[in-house]
């Protein structure tokens, strides 16, 4: 066990865990930020996607010891749940079971920063790594496009 200092959603946090603990479990078990989900643990589903320094990363395979930059989770994506991606997700009424959606939105938010006006095909490529077992892909894709048209 060792102490690690992290910046999560703008706050300094300190956790006492083993160095190989994936950020996912630090967030969920140590910090009780459970919006970030576990789906596979092997970087295949995207449910655990968070931002590190603004870029989308899979927190299930990122050891806490390798976290050197600020982290944003779904809980910190916006103060009032009104990030353009969150608004678009509500407008398009995306969630079915909803379990994958935090990861989907974090992937989308990071992607739109690098490509603010994507085509449908670009959206599909960017989101291809995120599984949705409920098959809500049509609405996820539409919501990314709707978000790209927002300020």
């Amino acid at each position: 066990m060792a102490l690690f200092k992290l910046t999560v959603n703008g706050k300094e946090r300190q956790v006492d865990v083993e160095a190989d603990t994936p950020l996912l479990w630090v967030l969920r078990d140590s910090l009780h930020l459970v919006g970030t989900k576990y789906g596979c643990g092997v970087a295949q589903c995207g449910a655990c996607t968070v931002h590190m320094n603004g870029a989308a990363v899979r927190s299930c395979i990122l050891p806490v010891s390798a976290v050197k930059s600020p982290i944003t989770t779904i809980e910190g994506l916006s103060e009032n749940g009104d990030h353009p991606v969150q608004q678009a997700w509500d407008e398009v009424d995306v969630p079915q079971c909803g379990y994958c959606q935090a990861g989907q939105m974090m992937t989308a938010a990071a992607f739109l920063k690098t490509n603010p006006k994507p085509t449908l095909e670009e959206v599909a490529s960017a989101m291809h790594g995120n599984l949705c077992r409920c098959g809500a892909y049509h609405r996820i894709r539409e919501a990314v496009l709707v978000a790209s048209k927002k300020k």
Partner: protein
Amino acid sequence: MESTQQHTSRRDFLKWSTFTAGGLVLGFKWSGAEAQTAEVFAAAPSAAPVAMNHYLSIGTDGIVTIFSPNPELGQNILTSFPMIVADELDADWKQVKVLQAPFDKRFDRQLTGGSGAVPHSWPLLRKAGATARAMLIAAAAKRWGVPESECTASDSFVIHTPSGKKLGYGELATEAAAIPVPTTVKLKDKKDFKLIGTAVKNVANKDILTGKPLYGLDFYREGMLYAMIQRPPSFGTKVKSFDATAVKAMPGIIDVVQTQNGVAVVGKSTWQVMKAKKALKITYEKSGNIESSADHDRIFLEQLDHGKAVVKRQDGDVEAAFKNAAKVVKKDYQCPFLPHNPLEPMNFFAHVKEDGVELVGPCQIPGSARTAVSKLLNIPEDKITLELTRLGGGFGRRLYNDYVVEAAEVSSLVKAPVKLIWSREDDMMGGTYRSAMRYRFEAALDDKGNMIGYKLRGVGMNDNNTTREHNFPSGAIDNLLIETINNPTPITTGAWRAPVTNFLAYAEQAFIDEVAQAAGKDPVEFRLELLEKVKAKPVGRTDYNVNRMIDVTKRVAERSGWGKKKGVFQGFSVYYSHRSYVAQVAEVVLEKGKPVVKKIYAVADCGQVVNLGGAQQQVMGGIVDGMGHALYGKFTFKEGAAEQNNFHNYRLIRMKEIPEIDLFFVDSGFDPTGLGEPALPPTGGAVANAIFKATGKRMYSQPFLETDVFTSTSGKKTF
């Protein structure tokens, strides 16, 4: 309007109930017989509503609270149930608050499965809303001293039509509660629905989109421990012995205990437990047959050739029909086992205490979960509480309560509150799989291409009935024989979204397509001929409504421009399941010599659509699910163990692979029927038949991606 997940104990729940004192509180029973009379009663404000099952309440602030009892796993019941109540109540949806009801055995059918919730509860929910509305109107009429017949209700107000006077539901709630409950109430004409049939957003959106702790895996209780179980990796084996010395010394590990089903590691965090579980040294011994997929292939052929079958249905003289046939078509279709893979893996919280058990988590049938725990621990059911969380998908997996029982078992062994978690690998390797199956179809055609004889023989693993013998084409063929064979296996199997029909529909619709070809007829015309025959004079029992089947068939042909398009290859399929009718046309193109599904047209008749937005999700999700598993769902066993264990070697459909979907709901005037499942069964057949048009190759087994249509051109698979 907003929703809140109840993370409260039963006691909190009752306390919460009394907070609504001063308003109108209605409870109604859900059980079959009582449902007919929709026993509705108003509770005195001060009385604790213990005797109530499900209820709506109206606060003096005008907030209408509607409890939704059924487990929510993405079928959107948490929105559609309250919509039905609110519509009949004429409530202002913006002032409606929805709560997931706690599990209470007095609810009837508090479960999610079989696409049955809305059809079952439709009359009850309507009556509950309409009864409250009548009482509010009576209260207003009394206060104004006018006849009730001069009053109407709209948007949470009672209005006196002649004078235009209005009173809000909040102002009337207390007086309404004192009005005797009417025994009969008039339900709305369908044309007067305001909410029903429209697209209403998921009431849980805000919580989901901001990452609130809604799911079982998110549940946390101060002092709880985390547990995982190493189960035997091979079906047909059990734990012989284990050495936990090293594991017990690992950081955060509190205990290692043997359970009925494996070895449980209990510790202070998920990661510590995950690591420790991998370090366990366990030896296993044989406890049953140890099977590989190659064994199943062999068993299936043996059984289809020589096995003793149970006859499910027999019409006419099949042998004679085949003897007199001008042409016979005979084909086999096979599918593998399939894991459910809800994205949230199995998990449950259990706290076994001196005086009872507390259970919290995601399950599809809370009633049977509680019974199972009661049996295991020999604790009466009334000492066991169960709180439902939102489910991160189900697909049938959470109909089985093995993981609930495990949680309770571990908690009782370590005498602590425990959250039991399955990893994805546990989930895929220890599933309650869709059974592998093989079907043999035979059709006899006369010299005019009429189907005069039909045989279906199905064999499944642990699946008692592989057929739906009163579905189409039964009723259309004079001489018909449907048989099933069950083959036992230690591999645990169970219901998987659209049980049986998730594969049977594809096999049947692919076969009928091939029979149409042999008969020299257009596949849609061929089916319509059969259906017209049923319409004129059905042979024996038919469970489907032939007119609705014809209607969706014709409509999808028209919408898709069936047979008129250039540059795309179309495949047709139609299926009746869970009381709904869905016809589909898939369109395939060839890209670099390989078939790609570009578009699927779907026409669905599920009776009255409740929530249009949610209904679209169910159909589109069902199509994506059906297509994904038909194309990619490869799952095999080697010496009793699943060979695929996570998403790197088990492929699920992803965004770039989805087709465009054109969806149309038929306004057939019927009451609502199932929708969580019925869109899935037809998809595999439509896709298979379109692939045939494009490539000339029939798909006889799933996943299609393993067939040479996809593998031959480059010699390499695309995955």
